[in-house]
């Protein structure tokens, strides 16, 4: 009886390295692969996923584990599905979340194809999340939970996915790395930024890819919620909802970006209260379980690491959903994800289209 084969996505970081090592320990026939998603002109040290150093680290870990390692070139797909979309979203005055698109379109779909090609029954990653009974659940380490980025994956992927570090916390993962002699990567720093934005300055990517006179990067008014011009900005794509930096001072209360109106090139600012929303409209909804019904209660997260909020589903048609929040939530940002939970279970998610300042009532159902 031959051992079951697992294709592990290895970024060269500690999480995916430990994931691979654990699977080797458990007796699987493990094959490592690093996805090359983009190419920096110059090498940027310690970048996750893609720089030469990361590929080399993954290769060294595989060498140490005695498993084969391959590099998968997904540059053109990543460029199309993720980077192009990232630029378009900012140009539309939204704040995109490229990791979700990468997981949804690039990583898991393509990775599963590669797994099929080499007769691997399973795929594995180093995400902090768990698959239990074919359902996606939050990682045991609440601080590290990455389900916020995973809601978009195809449902079928779940039945073939293993997440070996989802039951550990970060400290345990590092400890396992040391215990297994993976000193190469055991203390590698965390990656927090977007992988293809090496220095954290996403506007540089926009400047490279948008025309010089793109509205998103051109001057426009800063207005308050009643429409009065209170200042000027040099491109709405440089702003995101909830931001304070770059917002004019001199008001009675601290002011925040509360909306972006690309059609007027306007950045709207307001008080902390004006930043609150009571409802969420999300699109491109994907369910990882049976779809819930109107009237169901869910927990929703509207950005990475934001607390969970209670909400009720008030509208559900096709791939669009509207939720009414029990308590108002700050900085609901179009382009970010809304991820729906029932306890630890991930039900699904969608991309935030808009927020509502007033709580919508449930539609009156026809008798």
């Amino acid at each position, binding site marked *: 009886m031959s051992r079951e084969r697992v294709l592990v996505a290895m970024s060269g970081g500690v999480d995916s390295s430990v994931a691979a090592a654990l699977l080797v320990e458990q007796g699987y026939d493990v*094959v490592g692969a690093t996805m*090359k998603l983009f190419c920096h002109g110059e090498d940027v040290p310690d970048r996750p996923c893609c720089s030469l150093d990361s590929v080399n680290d993954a290769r060294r870990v595989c060498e140490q584990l005695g498993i084969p390692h*391959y*590099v998968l070139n997904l540059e053109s797909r990543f460029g199309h599905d993720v980077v192009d979309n990232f630029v378009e979203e900012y140009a539309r005055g939204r704040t995109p979340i490229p990791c979700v698109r990468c997981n949804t379109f690039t990583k898991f779909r393509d990775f599963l194809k590669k797994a099929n*090609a*080499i007769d691997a029954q399973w795929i594995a990653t180093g995400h902090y999340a768990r698959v239990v009974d074919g359902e996606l659940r939050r990682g045991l380490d609440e601080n590290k939970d990455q389900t916020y980025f995973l809601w978009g994956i195809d449902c079928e992927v779940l039945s073939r996915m293993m997440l070996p570090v989802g039951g550990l916390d970060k400290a345990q993962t590092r400890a396992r790395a040391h215990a297994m002699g993976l000193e190469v990567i055991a203390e590698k720093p965390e990656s927090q930024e977007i992988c293809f934005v090496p220095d954290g300055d996403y506007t540089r990517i926009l400047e490279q890819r948008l025309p010089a006179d793109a509205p998103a990067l051109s001057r426009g008014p800063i207005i308050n919620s009643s429409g009065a011009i209170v200042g000027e900005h040099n491109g709405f794509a440089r702003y995101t909802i909830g931001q304070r930096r770059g917002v004019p001072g001199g008001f009675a209360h601290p002011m925040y970006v509360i909306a972006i109106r690309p059609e007027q090139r306007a950045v709207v600012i307001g008080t902390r209260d004006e930043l609150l929303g009571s409802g969420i409209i999300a699109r491109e909804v994907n369910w990882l379980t049976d779809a819930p019904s109107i009237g169901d209660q869910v927990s929703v997260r509207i950005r990475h690491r934001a607390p969970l909020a209670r909400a009720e589903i008030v509208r559900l048609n096709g791939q669009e959903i509207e939720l009414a929040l029990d308590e108002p939530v700050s900085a609901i940002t179009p382009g970010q994800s809304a991820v729906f939970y029932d306890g630890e279970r991930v039900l699904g998610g969608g991309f935030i289209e808009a927020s509502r300042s007033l709580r919508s009532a449930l539609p009156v159902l026809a008798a």
Partner: protein
Amino acid sequence: MPIDPIYLDHAATTPVREEVFEAMKPFFGPRFGNPSSTHRWGREARAALDEARERVGRCLGARADEICFTSGGTEADNLAILGAWRALKAKGRTAVVTTPIEHKAILGAVHQAAHEGAEERFLGMTPDGVIDPASFDELVDEKVAVCSMMWVNNEIGSIQAVPELSAKAKGRGAMVHTDAVQAFGKVTIDAQTQQFDFLTISGHKFGAPKGIGALFIRRGTHIEPLMHGGTQDRGRRPGTENVAAAVGLARAAELTLAEGEAHCARIRKLRDKLEAGILAKIPDAVIHGRGAARAPHIVNISVPGTDSESLLMALDLRGIAASGGSACQSGSIDPSHVLTALGVRPDLASAAIRMSLGVLTTDQSIDRVIEIFPALVAKARQLAVAE
């Protein structure tokens, strides 16, 4: 791991031959001297180096002083292109001609020459990877400093008519370089009767270790050195010589030529069997360069509806080592610039698998590949349909 792995990547590199290893050993031991030293250790090393130079020269129909040892093919290619261009640019010869299917070592060096002011000219190719004579006539004119063409293409094996084209180019006053890294031992090379000015060989492609190659530089040809330092190799290539590797190169070159015809006949037969076996099971497989005169050791095949990245992984996991397009430094595979330049459809270019035969190839290994490759292809195509 599979019981009996099959190495079909001889165009990438070959194992060091036992006889070569033996020949090199004394120079890692008692005969460790520096050939530039005047004492007995130095003299011993110098004698070995001189002899190696002479022997490599003989293998190419060249004299000892026409052989410049380098670190390998890339250095030799760079030395030829840039050395010739830099020496000639002051004389009004401002163009560098090459083919679009060269190794990156040539393309990179030509690009550098262009950066230094040269005019890059790329020869037109037939779809099978042969230089179009009309394009050659048009582009190789009195403005050309150096014309470089790969004798045997490393990806598809197509052979250029280097002797004839060299004569033509010489008639127009251009310097001629040929990258013979894949050609050595596969075609007849004779510097006495053929008119190229520079010729590159690389040891690890025929049983010598990695890190040694040679550039033939015709006597009386002036080139600018790439590196500056001591007077080794007449100042063309400063740095203490790699005596052991030079001795290994000489031994490997001699063995390769001695066995040349028999070896070529053997692998040609296996190559033909491999191609026929695959085509019998995959009738729509495309073998690149098949219409051209080809070296016997390279098969480059694209199966519609597959991709080389997946197929190479699957082959490797079944113990079969082949290669795809140009592997980049990270190890990821980009579509081959060679196939792209020959007008191969992008989907076919990204499906290309190169299998290259050599000393390790046996009849049984070819039988196994004829079994396994079509089975993996069938599976890949099924998956492609399902997806």
